[in-house]
């Protein structure tokens, strides 16, 4: 870009000088133009910059939603909730478990019995080509808001909390959340009380990461 500053245009000259104070090295500041003199013009470089705001969320219609009905909890189960991210920046995904496991409502069970079945939540995040996929797994109990030893990706997601995918993920990359458990063994937390309604809700959130 080239700008000629005429003496009668004092105001424009001042603009150019002021801009040079911020946009050019300090040494260039001493120059001034004189009509018919030398130099008769000042060259001012005006950088042109722009930005694109970060966008981060789930792809339209591809958020992690849905329900899975596990079999009898004394048998193993495994299910994937597929979702797609739409982030043009590095991002974090986090999960919160409402119950910290599959919980059956009702009165607290007797000693030696349990109404909370453990299971594992695994996050698998896929990014654009060149972005390394990431994976992490935690027990659902460590994803509850009251967890004594919270999982590294317990939510809600923020710029610093959640599993980090260190690059953008377009709408075509398929990520998933897996819930699974081996066949329940009574030796750990007691005998699971009979109930038709063990349940948990997982809130999955995504945030841009800085």
């Amino acid at each position: 870009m080239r700008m000629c500053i005429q003496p009668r245009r004092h105001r424009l000259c001042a603009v150019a000088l002021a801009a040079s104070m911020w946009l050019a090295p300090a040494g260039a500041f001493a120059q001034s133009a004189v009509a018919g003199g030398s130099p008769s013009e000042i060259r001012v470089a005006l950088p042109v910059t722009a930005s694109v705001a970060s966008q981060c969320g789930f792809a339209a219609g591809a958020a992690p939603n849905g329900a899975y009905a596990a079999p009898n909890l004394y048998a193993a189960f495994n299910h994937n909730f597929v979702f797609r991210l739409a982030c043009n920046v590095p991002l974090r995904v986090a999960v919160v478990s409402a119950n910290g496991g599959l919980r059956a409502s009702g009165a607290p069970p007797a000693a030696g019995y349990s109404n909370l079945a453990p299971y594992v939540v695994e996050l698998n995040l896929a990014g654009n080509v060149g972005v390394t996929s990431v994976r992490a797994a935690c027990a659902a109990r460590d994803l509850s808001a009251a967890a004594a030893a919270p999982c590294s990706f317990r939510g809600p997601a923020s710029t610093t909390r959640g599993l980090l995918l260190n690059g953008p993920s377009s709408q075509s990359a398929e990520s998933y959340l897996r819930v699974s458990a081996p066949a329940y063994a009574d030796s750990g937390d007691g005998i699971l009380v009979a109930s038709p309604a063990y349940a948990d809700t997982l809130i999955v959130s995504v945030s841009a990461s800085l």
Partner: protein
Amino acid sequence: MNNMEPNMKQIVLAALAAALGAVAAPASAQTVAGEVSVHGFVAPRCGATYAAAPSFQGMIELGELSQSNGTLSPALQGSSDTAPAGVASFLVGCTGGAAQITLSASRLANPVEPGNSNSSNDIDYTAEIRIALAAGGFATVDYTTAQPLPAPTVESIAHVFANVAGNFQVRVFGLNAENGPASILVAGDYDSTITITVAPPV
């Protein structure tokens, strides 16, 4: 130039603002969320041991049954639920209350026939299951052998079992020789089988 100074300040501020605006906008802390739910169930069931084995077994060894004169030992005859002749313990668990217990037993029998009414090769007795309950206390289920064998005892236990080792204690007591306490026991091995079925409520 002096009359320009106020304008210069304004322009410098404007340039500063423009310079700040030229820096890439930071990633906003926008957060969006999805929700998934997971459901499951636990069917009523019963099992033995923590591994929920479908069966359990053990042995009650009563030892020598006769006293020196060949008749049934008075200690065995006089045994009771509080002082049983033999005991075996198991861990049995159910996922809920109202489990149904079915108990039966065969007579303690020697396959060698006595040959006369003054001898006995069959001994009747009472088998009892003493069940520790999670709420405290015990429930008992009894079955006494006879000729012919009575129908199995079937009882529903309303409360859940205590989930502790040995919550099922099988006791044997009150032995009686078939032909009376004065009958001579036929020499040989005596065997009996106690059969226990624990089932969740239908």
